């Protein structure tokens, strides 16, 4: 056991901190809470690309740095802590790139990997459908072979950044034979979002923000060379891919600014002449939150080391993601309570403290425990893979 960072890792941490500090000072880019979902800045992503901080965990032969997932975790932690605008390159770095490296053809590798590393292409995920939420295997959007092409018809939904991304990573039904087991009925296809026949309609979330979309496919023609991996293997590929999605620190850190705001507020706001943080109940609630944060952080670092050991930490990633999303939901609830009526004031309002991020984060929180696999779906995965329970 050795829980220290190596010298090189500590240096990386320092470098990225210094870089972010200088970027913040310049004031050219939007730094905000939950930036991963809300902000899309190709220019900022290109700055990171210049530093080699996109695809750092990818193998060298594919243009990455050949460093570990731990290095990626270090970078990500600092990026998200600072609220840096990472939305543009985020999916490419986290799962589309690794997915293409694992399963993609040479054509796809040549076509996309270098562009991802340069932050010149962005992605969205086309998984969920109106009738396939938690039950992903119920997807119906079809890709029918016609000559060298697939013809796509159907509808995807909850597509974050669908309106701004260049390509969509789609899970499409390619087998319509009722005898085919449902887990062999799907394929993954990369779809240019500008292809004729695609209609994108915004879905405004309950916070009043436009982050996700509905995407309609009406006889959309995509060349078969955009098939990722094997035809019929899409569902299995996606399960591996989702491990990469879940095995990261993002959900723990996405609301770091709200956490900082909360602690700052409690320390500096006096009630009856005493700082709120000296109130025993508030003090213990904050310490409890910190304990959870530190436990979650340790767990995510552990999951990261499993990835670096070449394992696919399926149930561990699910435990980590559940832990972190439950933490962030708790954080925004506690923060709004401690800030009292200030906890109700939204961004852009007069009298908003900390730019209103705490109120906004509270409104975002129902989504945390749903996205990327709801808490309950992840519990099913953990029960199946992590516990030796008789399930039947």
């Amino acid at each position: 056991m050795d829980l220290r960072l190596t010298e090189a890792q500590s240096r990386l941490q320092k470098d990225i901190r210094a870089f972010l500090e200088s970027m913040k000072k310049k004031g050219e880019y939007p730094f905000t809470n939950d930036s991963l979902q809300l902000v899309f800045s190709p220019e900022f992503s290109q700055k990171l690309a210049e530093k080699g901080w996109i695809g750092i965990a990818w193998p060298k032969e594919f243009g990455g740095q050949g460093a570990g997932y731990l290095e990626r975790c270090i970078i990500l932690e600092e990026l998200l802590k600072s609220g840096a605008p990472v939305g543009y390159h985020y999916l490419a770095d986290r799962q589309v790139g690794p997915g293409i490296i694992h399963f993609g053809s040479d054509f796809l590798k040549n076509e996309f990997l270098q562009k991802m590393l340069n932050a010149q292409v962005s992605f969205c995920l086309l998984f969920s459908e109106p009738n396939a939420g938690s039950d992903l295997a119920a997807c119906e959007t079809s890709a029918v072979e016609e000559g060298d092409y697939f013809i796509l018809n159907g509808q995807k939904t909850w597509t974050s950044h669908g309106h701004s991304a260049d390509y969509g990573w789609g899970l499409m039904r390619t087998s319509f034979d009722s005898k085919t087991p449902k887990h062999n009925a799907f394929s993954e296809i990369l779809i240019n979002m500008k292809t004729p026949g695609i209609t994108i309609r915004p879905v405004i979330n309950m916070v009043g923000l436009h982050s996700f979309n509905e995407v309609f496919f009406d006889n959309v023609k995509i060349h078969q060379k955009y098939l990722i991996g094997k035809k019929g293997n899409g569902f299995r590929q996606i399960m591996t891919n989702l491990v990469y999605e879940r095995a990261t620190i993002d959900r723990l850190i996405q609301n770091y600014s709200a956490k900082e705001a909360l602690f700052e507020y409690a320390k500096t706001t006096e009630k009856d002449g005493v700082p709120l943080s000296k109130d025993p109940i508030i003090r213990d609630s904050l310490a409890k939150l910190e304990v959870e944060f530190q436990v979650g952080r340790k767990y995510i670092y552990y999951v990261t080391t499993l990835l670096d050991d070449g394992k696919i930490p399926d149930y561990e990633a699910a435990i980590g993601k559940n832990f972190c999303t439950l933490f962030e939901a708790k954080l925004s609830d506690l923060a709004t309570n401690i800030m009292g009526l200030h906890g109700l004031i939204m961004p852009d309002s007069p009298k908003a403290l900390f730019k209103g991020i705490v109120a906004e984060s509270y409104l975002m929180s129902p989504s945390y425990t749903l996205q990327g696999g709801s808490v309950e779906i992840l519990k099913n995965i953990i029960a199946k893979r992590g516990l030796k329970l008789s399930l039947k």
Partner: protein
Amino acid sequence: MNFNFSKDQIILRKSAREFIKKEVPASLVRELIVDEKGYSSKVWKKMAELGWLGIAIDEEFGGIGADFMDLAILFEELGRGAVPSPFFSTVLMGGFLLQNHASEELKNRYLPKIVEGESIITAAISGEKGFYGKNQVGITAKKSNGNYLLNGSVLFVSYANVSDMIICAAKMDSVNTDITLFAVDGKVKGLTATPLKTIFGNYIDYSITLDNVMVSPEMIIGEQCKGWDYIEKIWPLIIAAQSCECVGGMQKVMDMTRDYLNGRIQFGKPLSALQIVQHMCVDMFAKVETSKLTAHSAAWSISEGLDSENEAAIAKSWCAEAYKDVTKIAHQVTGAIGFTEEYDLHLYTKSAKKLELLFGDGAYQRKVVADKLGL
């Protein structure tokens, strides 16, 4: 960064687990919690033979001088067996306080005997009300003819009946609240130990009273008035060891509950096939997995000699509450059989609550966390 145990540590854990499974089965634990000694001297002797009692004691006193991590592994396995024994008070409280601070004479007097299994030590550091903290110390020392007279009482002292020596924290007088640690003979005149019937044991914990107990100055551990500093120094070790005990216990609860649910047929299928039961098991499992990492990290940090105050406080806060929560979920999914004397779960439910409260519950530890945050 790696979270893996070394080969030697894995072997140590395996042999400890086998030893406890064989030598301290649940049937013996049941006997010990009503036994008048509160521990098994046969098992104690064997622990000495295995080198466990000297694991953290320097080689010059016959010990092994191993890392704290090795000791932590033993605590985890003791927790897994819910083993009632004076291991904690002797090896951790006695061993570390003496080794870190006592005079050569006191070290030579006690440490080799600890290693041999011939001396049981305990510590009385709280007060009449059973609260922890420098201002809560319940014994007062008064100088008298070159010696000290100790008076006062302490609510909770484990194994006071069988201890050869009790490390007593004492205020130097009622005005000066500085604390001095005295090595007090367990059979000294003026010391009364009354057994407490607790949720886990009838003769394990004692309320002690000191009535003009005379102690000579040579029996002071370390320097006068530095006693509480010494306690604070080993506090992370105390609560990290407890955290590991919690981890061992909750893993056992997880295992026994899983086995039970897999075998218990209701509605024509095992209870484990019910999704709601599965999800409750996942809640337990997540607590176990996160507790493991947290407790092991704290133990590692102590092993490496790093400042571990915060890490250990986080570990105890998390693990003690997790252990208790795990027993609660286990009771709910196990049903009525889990509420019986014959089923083992209650041993852990009781041990979880005791570990939570001894040396301060989660809220007590979180004061350290709050201080570190500048709250």
